[in-house]
């Protein structure tokens, strides 16, 4: 028979845990709203940017710009964007899993793979299993455009030096509060932006534009900016996804706590009842003996 006091301590312990998970759930919900707003605010910027890039690169040929150069791919760099903190279910693990399968398949093809990690969790999980060239940790809680610029510039420099021939970005795309999908997006060489699907009527008017300075020089400025935009976007999505994943994880944890408490309460009541019955039997037995 389980000890009464032990069960009682356990119940109060689980209750305290559920208080914490509930609080974390609410904090994550509040943060999620902020992160989503940030993401929404960035949307017009990317939309406009893509429009201009597709206008511009309509006339551009690849290999014209160093950042667009398609080389023989020998080494690949992966930018893995994860969150800084854990306790958000399998969210970071899923991104890391995608990274590991990518690394494996690239290494099978005889290519070298190096990693750049944004976010502490990805670094902790990947550091032992692969070569991490650089890490940016503890920036996910309050990142700005210049953080993204730092990362993008570093990646571009490495690409231009010829240390990497292809760069991909891995992050958790924010589909909805309930679903975050690990995704890989090509980063370098810069792909000429084709007319975005569903917007076929975007006229190719690049020839009519007056450029100041020349197209080439504008592209030289725009391409790094474009890379910033991709990294920033990935960071925003990871930020939002992290909070969404934590919200679900903590909700599950709170529910699990409730189940455990109700099971333990049944055990406690049974034990208490058994103790009462035993005592009664003792008293009745004693009384019988006195007769």
């Amino acid at each position, binding site marked *: 028979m389980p000890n009464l006091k032990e069960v009682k301590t356990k119940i109060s312990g689980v209750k305290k845990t559920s208080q914490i998970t509930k609080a974390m759930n609410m904090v994550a919900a509040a943060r999620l709203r902020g992160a989503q707003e940030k993401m929404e605010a960035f949307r017009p910027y990317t939309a406009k940017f893509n429009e*201009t890039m597709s206008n511009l690169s309509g006339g551009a040929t690849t290999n014209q710009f160093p950042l667009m150069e398609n080389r023989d791919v020998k080494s690949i760099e992966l930018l893995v964007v994860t969150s800084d903190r854990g306790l958000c279910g399998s969210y970071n693990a899923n991104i890391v899993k995608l990274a590991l399968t990518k690394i494996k398949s690239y290494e099978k093809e005889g290519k070298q793979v190096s990693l750049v990690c944004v976010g502490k969790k990805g670094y902790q999980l990947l550091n032992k299993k692969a070569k991490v060239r650089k890490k940016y940790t503890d920036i996910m809680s309050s990142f700005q455009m210049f953080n993204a610029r730092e990362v993008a510039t570093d990646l571009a420099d490495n690409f231009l030096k010829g240390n990497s021939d292809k760069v991909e970005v891995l992050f958790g795309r924010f589909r909805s509060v309930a679903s975050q999908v690990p995704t890989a997006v090509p980063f370098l060489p810069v792909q000429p932006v084709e007319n975005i699907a569903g917007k076929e009527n975007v006229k190719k008017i690049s020839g009519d*534009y*007056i*450029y*100041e*300075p020349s197209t080439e020089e504008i592209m030289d*400025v725009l391409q790094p900016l474009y890379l910033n935009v991709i990294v920033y976007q990935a960071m925003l999505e990871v930020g939002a996804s992290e909070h969404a994943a934590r919200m679900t994880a903590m909700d599950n944890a709170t529910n699990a706590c409730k189940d455990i408490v109700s099971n333990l309460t049944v055990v406690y009541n049974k034990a208490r009842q058994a103790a009462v019955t035993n005592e009664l039997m003792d008293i009745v037995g004693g009384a019988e003996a006195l007769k």
Partner: protein
Amino acid sequence: MAQQIRLEVVTPKGAVVNEDVDIVNAPGYGGDFGVLANHAPFLSTIKIGSLTYEQGRKRVTLMVTGGFCEVSNNKITFLVESAEFGSEIDVDRAMRAKERAEKRLAQALQHDETLNRTRAEASLKRAIARIKTAKSR
């Protein structure tokens, strides 16, 4: 009433301006330029500086940092990293930032640190643009 052109200023933090205006003056790559209604399609990079637009008698100045601008279909769009209204700029803070940046720049020049130098130069430029923008109100 004279013809107007639609002005949009978009930053990563959202749209800042979305209005019909009479004239826009902006710090372009090759110097300041002005855009009136029905301007030909035009694309230019933008330097750190102040952007002014006029709407009847109203005249508004913004401090913008690097990006680019596009003119097409009687609409001018600025995509910049940040934009601040002149009326919202804290001049004292900008002054202090300018002094700090000057000091850092001098230090970087002494020790020949390229990275610090570019950073200090950028923040000095921003500070100067802020002060100018705030004063041109």
